[in-house]
Each structure stands twice: as structure tokens, then as C-alpha cells.
């Protein structure tokens, strides 16, 4: 009776749910290729655009995309931002540059890191290439590409960037 109970304001209910994801079809083929240091995309039979990573379908046309296309690991920065705020599960030195990169032969940019140059030097139209992890560390994951870095090629003028400018 002597012990005073304080008012309950909150309870904590830890929850654990386990999900098992399977790589299927295009995903599986892409991951197999990247584990061998290659990038593979798919061309839409309808609009002819190339997607990398592929998803087995073209989101614009709503059709399956069976045709495989080899993709280069060089590309062009279409736009970017400089991250100056830490995030819970991202272990990178601030500031860093996250860019949308249109890989050569692909028609849709991927988002990736740019390193080996000051973040402030990144430009729209800048040419970049992938830097891969050491081969012995390769696995079935996008993380085989550690980041992109600038290459000594002239910037792509925005008018030549087509849809992405």
C-alpha cells in the first residue's frame, strides 16, 4: 500500500515479424549477372525503352519485357542532391552526393553515390563511371557497385539528355 503507482502513459510492445523474399525472374537474372560484374537490362517491346535494373515489365506500357540488353557501367548525372544530414541506417561521411545517373544504353536513371570528388563539384550532365568492390567481395547485390566517380569526358549538354532534363 505504501508504494505509489505512477500513471501509465505508454507501453512498449516489441514485435518481430520475419519475411522471406525470393528473387524471381528478371530480379534473379539481374542479380546473377551483377554477381559476375555485369549489368543487364530489359527492353520494352512496345516503347523500346531499356530498364536497368529490370523488373520484368514496362511500367509505362504494362507489358512483359523478355529482351535482355547489356548495360554499360558508365553514365551521366541527370540531377543530384548533397546530403548533409545523418540517417539512421546510412553510414557515410557527410556531406555526400546522391545522384540520379543515366547509365549508357539504359533509359532510366538509377540513384547512386558519387565519390572521389568534392560533393559541390558534381554537375548535371557530368560523366561518371562505376567503381566496383573487389571481385572477391561480389555477391548477388547492387552493393557490388560501391559508388560512381567522375571521368575525364566532356559534360553532356542538357539538350542531349532527352527525357531526363
Amino acid at each position, binding site marked *: 500500500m505504501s508504494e505509489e503507482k505512477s500513471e501509465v502513459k505508454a507501453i512498449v510492445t516489441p514485435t518481430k515479424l520475419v*519475411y522471406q523474399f525470393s528473387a524471381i*525472374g528478371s530480379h534473379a537474372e539481374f542479380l546473377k549477372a551483377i554477381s559476375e560484374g555485369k549489368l543487364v537490362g530489359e527492353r520494352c517491346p512496345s516503347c523500346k525503352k531499356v530498364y536497368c535494373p529490370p523488373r520484368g515489365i514496362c511500367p509505362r506500357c504494362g507489358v512483359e519485357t523478355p529482351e535482355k540488353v547489356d548495360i554499360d557501367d558508365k553514365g551521366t548525372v541527370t540531377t543530384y542532391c548533397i546530403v548533409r544530414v545523418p540517417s539512421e541506417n546510412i553510414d557515410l561521411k557527410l556531406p555526400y552526393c546522391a545522384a540520379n545517373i543515366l547509365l549508357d544504353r539504359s533509359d532510366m536513371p538509377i540513384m547512386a553515390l558519387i565519390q572521389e570528388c568534392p560533393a559541390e563539384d558534381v554537375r548535371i550532365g557530368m560523366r561518371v563511371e562505376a567503381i566496383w568492390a573487389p571481385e572477391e567481395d561480389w555477391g548477388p547485390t547492387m552493393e557490388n557497385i560501391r559508388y560512381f566517380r567522375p571521368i575525364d569526358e566532356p559534360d553532356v549538354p542538357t539538350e542531349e539528355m532527352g527525357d531526363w532534363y
Partner: protein
Amino acid sequence: MRDVAILSFAQTPYKRRESERTEVQMVLSVVTDAVEKSGLPKSDIGFTCSGSSDYLAGQSFAFVGAIDGLGAWPPIAESHVEMDGAWALYEAWIKIQTGMCNTALAFSFGRASMGSLPETLNMQLDPYTLGPLGIDSISMAALQARAWLDQDNHTERQMAEVAVRSRKNALNNPDAQLKGDFEVEKLLSEPYLIEPLHKHDCPPITDGANAVVIAAADAVPSGANPVWIRGIDHRIEPHQPGFRDLTQSPSTKLAGEKAGATRLDIAELHAPFTHQELILRDALGLDDDVRINPSGGALAANPMMVAGLTRMGEACREIWAGRAKRALAHATSGHCLQQNLVCVLEGD
């Protein structure tokens, strides 16, 4: 009210684990199939609504990826309910009633195989008072079954008979997952899963997707075989199991009355557990000459977020096959039949 008809239905074969196609590929296949069968060009579809659950997929905004399977370009008028696809169809039906569109597509998808469904469904319970107890979906159903059995001399044999009939009916359903000839005696001799439920009283865990195209009377294309939605209504009950009589389903009864559920040849009931079919039959006043679940029902395939809309599709298939003229389709959501939808369908 405008007269609205179901023009077509498509579904994936229902499986314990879909290992060949991604969710978006499943969506693409059923949507393409349903639109083709409807006789309408895809560009004529005036509204699209889907049903799915983020928790089932294990990620936030899981339904956003499904848009990729629609070819939503040019942009489409579209909405999504975090509910079974049956309610997506209801929203689509409402949209046609407003006159803002004349045709609509409803679809749903669920891939329960990625997680552990009974534990995932624990997340559906009141997070302050029920969820922390750790009770899973089968245990919730078992509570309800016990309450039902303790009333009016109900027996486990009646429940087993539902399981036997469902899985026998499923033998004629190429898309069903769990089918076969079983014997009541043998089933009853097996151990309990969670007493008083045996394994046969419970639904399988299923991956699948389905799609339906509907149209107002003036937009039904020539050559179509429309199944008319004569009535559709849905109701919810309190969530706390202690707030209601678990042996009854007043929300189903009310929805059935509002939807005009009389003079029926068949009923497709979304009863994941055997005793729930018996509760639903009672609530809807279905007598013995109404054939129940010719497809095998949810005991033969129970894709979460999908199985309710499947009941509508399966009722249509009976009508299209000439085996029924007027049918009832029912969908449920939540634990112990908390929320229920009734739709009355009739051939042309």
C-alpha cells in the same frame, strides 16, 4: 441507382507459394486477362481500385509497385483500399453510381507466403489491449469456434462436414489449392491444431491475385455476358471480442437484408474457418437448397486481401456456366468475422 454488371473475372491459380512471378507480374497477368475478357479496350476503363496490405508484403507502400503492372500511362483515375479486393469493387461500384465513370477495374493481390500469416494477423488486433497478448489468428478463430460449439448442440462433426464438402467441391475448380476426397471420421480422429480447431477447420495459406471489370448498363459492350449486381452492402461490428456475440454475425445479416439476399441458387461465402460458414449461413438464413461454395471457398484457397473478391468471381463463374441464375457473394475482414460484405448477383 444505376444498373451495374460484372463483365469479366480473372485470377491466378492459387498456390501455397508463387515462385515464378513477382507480385507485379501476377497483377499484370490478371488485369490483362480480365480486361481482355471484358470486351472493353483498356483505354475505356474509367476507374481502377485495388485492395492489398502492406503488412502482408512486409513493406510500406507495397501497392505502389503494383501500379507498374497496369500500364498506367497516360495517367489513370485510381484509388486503393487497405482492405480485401471486395471493398475495392465496392468503391468502384460507388464511382459508377456517381456518374463520374461508366466502367471500372477492381483488383487485389496477396503474397502471404513471404511471412508467417497467423503472427502477422496478430498485428490486426487492438495494439493496447489485445495485440500484446500475442494471440494469433487461429487462436482467435478457436475462441469463436468454442463459443459456437457450446451453443445449441453444435458439433465438431458439423464443422468437419463443411471441410469435406468444400475440398470435394474444389476438385472441380482448377484454380483451387487444397482439394480432395476426405472422410469426416478420419478427419475427426486427427489431433487438434488449436482446440477445438483441427487442421481441416482452417484455411490454407495462399498466394494469388484476381481482377474484375464492371460496367454500367449503358456501357456493357455487345456480345458481353453481364452478371448484374442487384445489391451490395457492407457492415462492421465492434473489434473487441467481448463486445459482441461471437456465435452470431449481425453485420452479415444486416448487409444481406440491405443487399436483398433472397431467392438464391448458390452462395459463395468467405468463411476461412469451418464454423464461420455455419455462422454465416445462419445469419443469411440460407436453407439447404442453396448450394454453398461450389468453388470450394476459402477452405480450398484463402489468399489474404483477395479471397473476398474471389467469391464474387466464383459466383459469376457459376452463373456464366449456367449452373445458377441468382447468387450471393460474401467477403469478410478482420478477426472472427468482424466486417462483412454481401453482394447479390444475377445472370442476364
